[in-house]
């Protein structure tokens, strides 16, 4: 959906000059034979177009031309094979996007970084979609999985128009509460699609916790 908006709507008040020009032109010019009708019409057109130009008419496009923000998990819980598969999927998705669709990529570990700034989705194919560093040189800290911060950045990115968020993660969150961001996105009408990638398997051995008595006595 498109609509016409004005950058300087106040300038349209200058259109009041048009009838003034017209009346003086007719009274002092045409009626006294000093001005031809065509000349008057030309001048009125110039003044009107100049005023409209000053008001800066703009075509505002609706949310249909929005895009997608890919939120990609770069934490250590995702193995190299799963990461490669996710990157291939990401490139396929960007390649299949319509030419007008915009996209951005957010990579996250403990904190999110903007891997690629918002732009045409197909243009992102030229950049390293698997980049682990941000546009400002920040590097992803892979030691934690903070999905909520990644989703928060995806919600706040100035993408233009509407958006949908695509989360690529194993869901092994250990920082923050992604459900809070998901609830807020739902209230804003921003859909979140999830591509689940394999993370650490359930059969993986790990030290789940350690506990000790608060005090102990010898003997």
């Amino acid at each position, binding site marked *: 959906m498109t609509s016409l908006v004005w950058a300087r709507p106040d300038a349209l008040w200058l259109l009041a000059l048009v009838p003034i020009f017209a009346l*003086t032109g007719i009274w002092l010019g045409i009626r006294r034979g000093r001005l031809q009708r065509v000349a008057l019409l030309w001048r009125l057109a110039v003044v009107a177009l100049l005023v409209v130009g000053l008001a800066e008419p703009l075509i505002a496009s609706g949310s249909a031309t929005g895009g997608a923000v890919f939120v990609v998990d770069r934490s250590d819980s995702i193995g190299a094979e799963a990461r490669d598969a996710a990157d291939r999927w990401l490139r396929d998705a960007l390649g299949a996007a319509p030419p007008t669709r915009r996209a951005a990529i957010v990579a996250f570990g403990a904190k999110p970084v903007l891997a690629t700034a918002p732009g045409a989705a197909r243009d992102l194919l030229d950049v390293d979609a698997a980049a682990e560093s941000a546009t400002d040189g920040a590097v992803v800290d892979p030691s934690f999985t903070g999905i909520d911060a990644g989703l928060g950045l995806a919600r706040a990115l100035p993408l233009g128009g509407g958006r949908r968020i695509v989360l690529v993660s194993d869901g092994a969150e250990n920082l923050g509460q992604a459900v809070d961001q998901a609830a807020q996105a739902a*209230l804003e009408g921003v859909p979140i699609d999830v591509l689940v990638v394999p993370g650490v398997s359930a059969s993986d051995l790990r030290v789940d916790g350690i506990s000790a008595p608060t005090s102990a006595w010898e003997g």
Partner: protein
Amino acid sequence: MNLLFPAGLAALVAIPVIILFHMRHTTPTRRPVPSLRFWEAANPRPADARRLRRPPLSLPLLLQIAAAALLAFALARPATAAQLTALAPGLHSEPRHLILLLDGSTSMSATPGATSLSRWEAARLEALERLAPLRQGDVATVILMGTRPVTLTATDDASLIALRERLALVTQPGGRADLDAALALAGDLFLPNLDRQVVIISDGAITADPAVAAGVDAPVTLVIAGAADEDEERANLAVIDISARPSPSGDGTVGLYTSVANFGPRSLTVPVSLHGDGLEIGRSDVTIAGGGAVEPLRWLLPPGVAELTVRIEQADSLSADNTASLLPGEAATAAIAPRILLVSDLPGALARALQAIENVQLTIEPGDNLSAIAAGGYDLIVFDRTAPPTETLTKLDTASLWVGPPVGGPLATTEGIVDPKVTRVRAGDPLLAGVDLSGATFGPTPIFTLSAGDEEIVGSTDGPLLFRTQVNDQPAVILTVDPETSNLPKRVAFPVLIANVVEALAPDGIPAAIPLGEPLVYEPRASTASVEIVPPSGEPAQLPVLSVESDDEEHIPIGSASRDIVYTDTGAAGVYTVTETDAAGIDLGSTRFVVNAGHPRESDLRIDPTLASALATASGSGVTAPREERVDLWPLLALVALMVIAAEWIAALWPAARKTTRRPVVRGAT
């Protein structure tokens, strides 16, 4: 000075065209004359001797050339240094990313004494003023800080206009602002090739972590909305806590407990009134020391009051937190409370323990009423020394608690019966929170055997006494002890243990009151497909609920997914209504809860003295090299061109106007 669109200078070709028009001989006007006798002598040169003449240096020609030149120059979009910013405010051309952190917390509702605008309205005007200069190429991000941070963005002229229009109409979100989260988000929003500026518009009654501010890596400006007045002018009284509970004396009366705080610098004595269902039922004068001191108050309540309101009868700059309400009867009558079915042939200690739990609906049925068990619709089924037959058990679709299950039931036992002693306890298990089993005896107890996946919580040398398992793929807790032969029901541990089990197995009820800005988190009942929450503003929010009956393998297994509802828009004070509906859209019941504006943090309107120093740590050292601010001059040039055209119009018509004004004088002379 740079030309952003040099090709626009091609429009200068209009100048020679204009001159050419003026060099052209005009066609003589046809005029009837009485005689041609003197005609040749008056005009000796024939009119068509030359088609072109030398350009006449007339004022209209010069003005037309000037107008054309100005328009051509404007089309070339000249941009000049920032020295002309004052001349053309808002016409800068260097792209930038303006990040506005707009404080929408409850404290921004305060109205400083000298003005009629609230701080929120002043902040919004300030934000609109900051957004006004942005043009095509700029990016704006507005983070509206409240209970639920809302982000608004704009990337081009049209969306900037839409952003300004939306900001002009947006309502104050209320609640508590998390400046640290907003600053962290602003730090993450690094867009290349844009000069980033962060502006915080707040009342100053907000805290910031210096470490978070340092991570923003961009200049941060703090703007105090409204007057930056002293503590004296930011004095505020508030009801910051309200609750009702049975009197500790056990006389059956209910007490209302409330706390009144004074965030002004001086001690005050103020009247505080209590209203029940709209009628004043109590009043007292309270003296509260200044500097954030809190004074507790207590009233005895008459029975049957549905709605209570405590009111400070003194005006101050934030009136919303001078009252606080409570719905003491709502929890007992709420239709949304978890439904528990107790299957018992002889209700005793277990029934009493379940009845003592607040905010639940308890139904008791005998063990032979199999249709009630199979019908479903309950959030928890408790079997008291009984077990249904297998065909009924297979229809069990909810969590269950089994107390003293009989031998031969669905749970596997050995043939032995012992008088067990506790030898193993799973430390830290939430079912045992506050449960002291020392001194408890259990009487004759069958020996149950654990299956794979079962989790023993309390055990003896012969077998488990309390364990988790699954019955018909639903979570279940088994207490193997017969409460009638054990001394456990006579000890405090028993009702605490039962309450813990119910809390673990049944969904939570909705509390009658929620602190300002705290999210409402609860698990809807099993048959609920959607929850509607209507805030005080009246705009309902629909929250879908994950179905418990989904068997689709492509979906997330229910066992690992939460059915919790998270509702974060609790920033507005007032009464909220919660309604649950099933998949067919039929109402399953509704309840209400209250959010009060009074809060120890939001009611304190004093400026945080550490805020400025914390924000000063945001150096912006990592920002791209400082850019020279430039102003785009084309609108100025176009406006001047319009004025020149108007002047040319006057010059062109002036002789006719002068002739018109002289004519009466000539007539008078003759």
